């Protein structure tokens, strides 16, 4: 999931100009991805992973790095799996 997301950020959001961001790099606070970029990222998450992200979950805690985004999404997926059981 991390790889997929890094590729998306590099290719689409940063237009191929990304200098190889890593999982723990700050992407929001350092301005790599701004709020408009995050909305692209949300589209990508919803389209490719099928997880809808409510507005109140779009917080700096959940979106500061690729790692935290993926951790958040795993939490969501786990939660919904449990819910389904």
């Amino acid at each position: 999931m991390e790889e997929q997301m890094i590729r998306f950020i590099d290719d689409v959001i940063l237009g191929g100009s990304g200098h190889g961001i890593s999982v723990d790099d700050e992407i929001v606070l350092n301005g790599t991805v701004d709020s408009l970029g995050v909305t692209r990222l949300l589209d990508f998450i919803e389209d490719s992973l099928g997880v809808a992200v409510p507005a109140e979950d779009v917080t700096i805690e959940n979106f500061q790095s690729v790692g935290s985004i993926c951790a958040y999404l795993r939490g969501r997926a786990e939660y919904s799996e449990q819910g389904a059981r």
Partner: protein
Amino acid sequence: MTGEHTNSQTYPLTAAQASIWASQELHPDVPLYNMAFLYEFDGGINEDAFVSAFSSLVDEADALRTVFRDTGGEAEALVMPLDEFVLPVIDLSTAGDSERDADAWAQSRSTVMLDTSERTFDSALLRLGHDRYAWFLLQHHLCTDAWTFTVLFRRMEQLYLAATGSSVDAVELNPFARYVEFEAAERREAGHAAEKPSQAKQPAPLEIYGSRHRDTSTANERESVSLSERTSQQLDELAGSPGVRALTPNLSKFQIVATAMYAWLHRVSDQPSITIGLPVHNRTQPEFRTTAGLFMEVFPCTVDVAAEDTFASLHAKVRQASMETLRSARPGASTAAEARAVSTVFNFIQAEFGAFAGIDCRSTWVHPDHVDGVHQLRVQAHDFDATGRLRFDFDGSADTFDAGTRGSMPQHFLRIVDAMLTDWEAPIGSVDLLEDEERAVIDAAVNRSAPDVALADVVEQFARTAARAPSAPAVIDGDQTWSYQRLDDASRAVAANFQPGGVVGVALLRSAEAVATILGILRAGAAFVPIDPSWPRDRIRFVVEDAGCVTVVADGDMGVATTPFEELQSPSSRSDIRPDSSDLAYMLYTSGSTGVPKGVMIEHRSLAHYVSWASSFYDQGQRLTFPLFTPMTFDLTITSIFVPLVSGGAIRVYSESESQTDLVVLDVFNDDAVDIVKLTPSHLTLLPDHATKKRRIRRLIVGGENLTTATARGALAKLEDDALLHNEYGPTEATVGCIVHTFDSTFDRTDSVPIGKPIPGMRAYVLDDGGHRVPFGVPGELFLAGDGLARGYLGRDDLTLGRFIVPGHVAELRLYATGDRARVRRDGTIEYLGRHDDQVKVKGVRLELGEVEAALASHPQVSAAAASVWVKDPHSESDEVVYCSRCGLASDQPGVSYDEHRVCNLCRAYDTYQDRAEAYFKPEDELKAVLTSRRDGIADYDCISLLSGGKDSTYVLARLVDMGLRVLAFTLDNGYISDQAKANITGVVETLGVDHIFATTPAMNEIFVDSLQRHANVCQGCFKTIYTLSMQMAHERGIPFIVTGLSRGQFFETRLTEELFTELTVNADEIDVDVLEARKAYHRVDDAVRQFLDVSVFDDNEIFDEVQFVDFYRYVSVDLDDLYAYLEGRLPWKRPTDTGRSTNCLINDVGIYYHRKVRGYHNYALPYSWDVRMGHKTRSQALDELDDDIDIAEVSRILDEIGFPDDIGEHESGQRLVAYYVAPVDIPTPELRTHALEALPQQAVPSQFIRLETIPLTSNGKADRSALPEPEHQRPELGAAFVAPHTETERALAAIWEDVLGIGGIGVRDNFFDLGGDSIMAIQITARANRAGLAITLPGLLDALTIEQLARAIEGDDGTAEEKKPEAVEIPEISADEMSRLASLLQRRDGGS
């Protein structure tokens, strides 16, 4: 111009550029898209380096070298390779206050019009002193946005530093051309995907401070405020707190500030759904961050604000909505339509400039005093100088908002921000927007202080008047005139029967006795309670018990203890009991929300207060005669009884009439025997035209419901020039009237007449839901205070406490909550805006929806009920109009339905009988035989050919001539035939060599007016005139035939219906008989044609044998192309181009406009659909022609020219009380109606009942009346009361009528035409009735016109069903003017049009 065109690069405009280009084109001389910044440098600048750096900047930034060319409607952008612009250095250092000069210079320079085909920027370096400079940069918005200014600023800084020899990182700007490609690709992709449903729902226009914004001017003024240091700190803290913190500090701040913005807009609009435009920077790729150019696009963002929202809960909504807006925002995705639907923009600008090359810099966005006129308000939040404090620019339309409002906007907004940052959990409604000072200004504008004088009670005032002039007439009742002496004696005698403090019911009809009784009760120190003898017995009993009446003075039995007036006339009398001012004078019962009527207790103080004011204000020392004609139970009537009696005037009594609908007001108008009338706006609309000049009625006091300006204007036009009309406002609880406005037709321009200012001794406040005074213009609830306030509701302390409140915020002892919405204009005048809560007024009668709902819910089968008042708003577009996929017939046409292929019911039906319908048509060769069949040698002509000058009638004439017939061409010159059409007519008759008559009538304008009033179009009046005049001519000259140019489509539209070919075994001759019958009835209708033209020719029905109508196209079928080819080859005929459509007539548009307005659909839609079905038009031709572009100014000019009274407004007030109920099955409407009548007064019985699965609820679990479905196709409000079917036959007929007419709840006395019936429906009803074994004929139906008459005809007079020809039954003379709708059986319009 510089540069080589060969090297220039061109590109099509982006969506955002195209939108701006189009708006600029609309205002070619206004600098509405000038974006200018002034950067003031607190230090020295190397001028040469700066000038050189700027040249490099222009070379580098293609946005600065872009110009725009109009290439025949489409604009394109050209990027010029070079621009030899040299930055001017302007010396302002010699002036006094150079800084202000720089501001003034920039302000002035920012309004210079840029010629965007030459250059899209302007710039200068200003020398303010040896170490003070300023840089001015102006760009057209086509090439820039706020972010671009930071990009250029930063790059300029680098270039300047480089020019001064410093070494800097040179990061070159990226070309804008790359974004152009990117944006186009995004748009293509979006076009392919097209997955996102566009925001189909147009946002409601945001109306703040009561100012309706119209895109009339671009003039705009700025008011700015900055957050204080403390507030800014609070904002930063909140932005960083958990639960509020968003992705970035800026986004957090934006969401908080936007929350305050939505809260403020909600508070100053009182609208629940707020849509504002959010600019989105669109720099989605890293390279775009260093690109200059226009990226920004505005996207609408709607938030539903609830009154109970706290800032925190509203913030959650704003976060959600703004996130959705951001996510749906895509470069190129904003549409011009969306952008133009948003009138308020909130721009949270993240751009920061900071220092320039180490020099402190102050950056200012210079306002060019203009913005796009679409925007009423643009708010920019920014911190350009990175001070840590946000600054807000409120750019408000100078046309929409007055200076006072513009000035107070930022202040009110700041109050919200402060309150929000102080208490995040506070309800948004808890904030007081006003400072003490502004509140005092509002109070001073509205309320006047009253002289503190003790007022005599009304009895004493009457006694004094009676003593002064005992023999003067006091009451005129029929042929009896009671002098003041007699009234004095009679009332004293009444008084002797009652005790002080007693309560006495009065249920007398309006009469001198009733007046004496009321006076007498007051003289005894008792209180009176008016009771309407026509109330249901239950209600009377309730009121008598509730009020504790010792007796009811009445004439007949009413199920309670009564005393006749005569018994009260004992000779003993005693002197008046002088009441205390707080003694009860009367009680009036009004509807209660729980279904129980409540008694409003009015004390003597209040009665004396109102009557004293009213007599001095209205009578002004004159002794005026008032009519007493309104119900005694209506508090409006208090004026007509007491005002004349305390001022020496007289009462003229108009007693209740027998009929259910009390139209006694007409007698008041017709008699014209009074000076002043107190009445409702509904009454006003009945005021007849000048019958006799010099009317006695000179003053009208209007009360009881909203008065529209159209009604007021219409009424005044019918009175003498010096007549006055007072709009008096006041709930029963504030004693008759307490706010008054004298109508001024010059200055009163709003839809409703203002209610004015409080009378002395009364005070008014407009408060919001939080109990705060609202700012000028903002709607709120109207509260009253002062001497007129009632004591309360008898025995209903809970209700009394709920409506008569002890306020905290306002310095008053008691306030009455009127439940009315109002707003205060800046001059202190109050405007009425309707009911605030569920209390409604229908036809002047106040009722609470809860009472209606309670009555309905008491039906055993009903589990839940809701009621709602629908006001037909002809301005509102109906939801979504669909069009038949075959004929194009629109869904706003009454009675049209569509199948799953969106084919209309008319097309489907026509499929089934098209073949058989052929039988109606006749072979062409028979035509000549018919038209020559009566050549008896007397007449010079075989026939008259009706010639409008259009293609169809021209073809008819030419063909008749070709057949060798002797033809007289006949044209009506209605005064509005276009010049080209006239040229066609004269050319055609000349070429054909036929005799021609141009008939005219001086009464044409009266006929147009009458036609508009009856049929909402002009054509029907015109056609009747043509038929009438041509019949006369045929009669005089012995011509046996009149040939019409009715098209085949019109046959189907008006006479050939499905049933003729499927249900009935009808042959062509039978249809002809019916048509002739209809034609006879049509000419008997008493309309303007009958009044103004000589119609003696129709006195004898023989005329219809003597002169016969022949429809040419019944015999001849011609293809449209052939027809045109024929005309072209033979005649000098050209299609008129000066009427704007395929018509010859310039007044046609008036009819179309008016019909749309009052009937809600296009009067040509149905005829055109038949033209399509007949193959005479294509669907798109028909739709094109129906898509009118009507010049409303011209319509209004013509309406004025023909003398049409401007009563368009009166059509708009059509209120309907509709009830909704939940029940397992449909309950017949008559049953529900009867049930409701047991508990409710007649006026409170809904006119329609609709069954629902569930009643929609709000989030709070209350019934959501706003979500109830709009009723359609129900029995319209008719003049006649509803009478349910009684007999078997009536019920069967009613079922058929309801089915065919598509409406429910038809009463047996409802007129067929009033219900919207037409001849086609008449045929359908006949067919179905026959199938059901009810023997009726079409002429029988058209004679009867009501179910009652029709049933009587079927059943025979003794009520037994028997076979009986309806024609044999005695038919009452047809005088109903509704019969004129039979015109639909004949030509709706000329075949030539």
